[in-house]
């Protein structure tokens, strides 16, 4: 600090006191600004909150895939006539979103060209694992997931 302030002296000097006050005020203001800013950068309260999804089977169209958000992941409900099938829509290679091709009857991954059949089994491409199956129940004509 300054020379006129004896270092290590027991008696608090007026200058030291003023400096302390200014420091405290500065720290309080900085904290008051930093707190909301840091909080803002945190995770927002999620809007989903829904953990169960119900889709009436009657709404599903044959050979059409229906993509839904479920617990933060994309899943696909596929109806090929008999019973619906629910699969994770993210490719078992590196997780890109697979697209249903209802002409060729396969899932196609846009990233590195993996192909899966309508059961989610790998057909070709850089994959060996199938698309993860999502457990669901059929109750009163609804596909209930979760």
């Amino acid at each position, binding site marked *: 600090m300054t020379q006129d302030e004896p270092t290590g002296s027991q008696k608090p000097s007026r200058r030291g006191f003023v400096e302390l006050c200014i420091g405290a005020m500065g720290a309080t203001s900085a904290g008051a600004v930093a*707190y*909301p*800013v840091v909080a*803002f950068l945190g995770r*927002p309260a999620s*809007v989903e909150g829904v953990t169960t999804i119900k889709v009436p089977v009657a709404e599903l169209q044959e050979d059409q895939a229906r993509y839904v958000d479920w617990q933060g992941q994309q899943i696909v409900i596929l109806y090929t006539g008999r019973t619906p099938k629910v699969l994770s829509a993210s490719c078992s290679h590196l997780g890109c979103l697979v697209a249903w091709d209802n002409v060729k009857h396969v899932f196609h991954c846009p990233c590195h060209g993996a192909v899966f059949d309508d059961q989610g089994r790998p057909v070709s491409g850089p994959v060996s694992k199938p698309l993860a199956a999502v457990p669901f129940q059929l109750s009163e004509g609804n596909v209930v997931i979760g």
Partner: protein
Amino acid sequence: MQTVERITDALDERYKIRPLIEKNVTKKLVPRTLGWAACFGGLSLLVFLIQVFSGALLLMYYKPDPARAWDSVTFIKSNVPMGWLIQRVHAVGANVMIVLVMMHMARVAYFKIYRKPRELHWVSGVILLILTTQMAFTGYLLPWTQLSFWGAKVGTEIPGAVPVVGESLVEWLRRGNVISGETLGFFYAMHVWILPGMISAFMVMHFMMIRRTGISRPL
């Protein structure tokens, strides 16, 4: 305090920062006759910086799309931690900034500070005032509420009074005949990049001029 001192020493040894700090902060002499009214310019800068930083935070969640703009602002206000505060600070800050700029200009006008050699201070200041009001105007549309929509409609009608080119001016501002998603995109770009960039450029000029001429001393 010891550490601060040590860091300052190290920096001073390399970059000679002590004389810089002394000249500009600790030993800077301010004319005695300067009153509190001389602070409005600096305060305007402070509020501008607050707007830049709070705006940058809002940008993380805002979506400039007519279908989602309102929802995204509601999301900021109700789901993002402290989002309501940052949004409010940004909205109130806009008004505060205009008030401060006006007070600053009122002082400059009253004490006739704009006279030679400071004419260009005034000119750049007026340009900054116009840019500031344009910031407020473009920002007002972004939440995409009824108020913003009609505010933008009425506001963009004003240049229609210009003879000959008025009509096309209105269309140019609206990116079409009516306020639409295109208008929103245009106002958004203006609000977050183009106008702030222009304001920063004129502010730098404004401050450099003041460094050259010094602050005016009242008689």
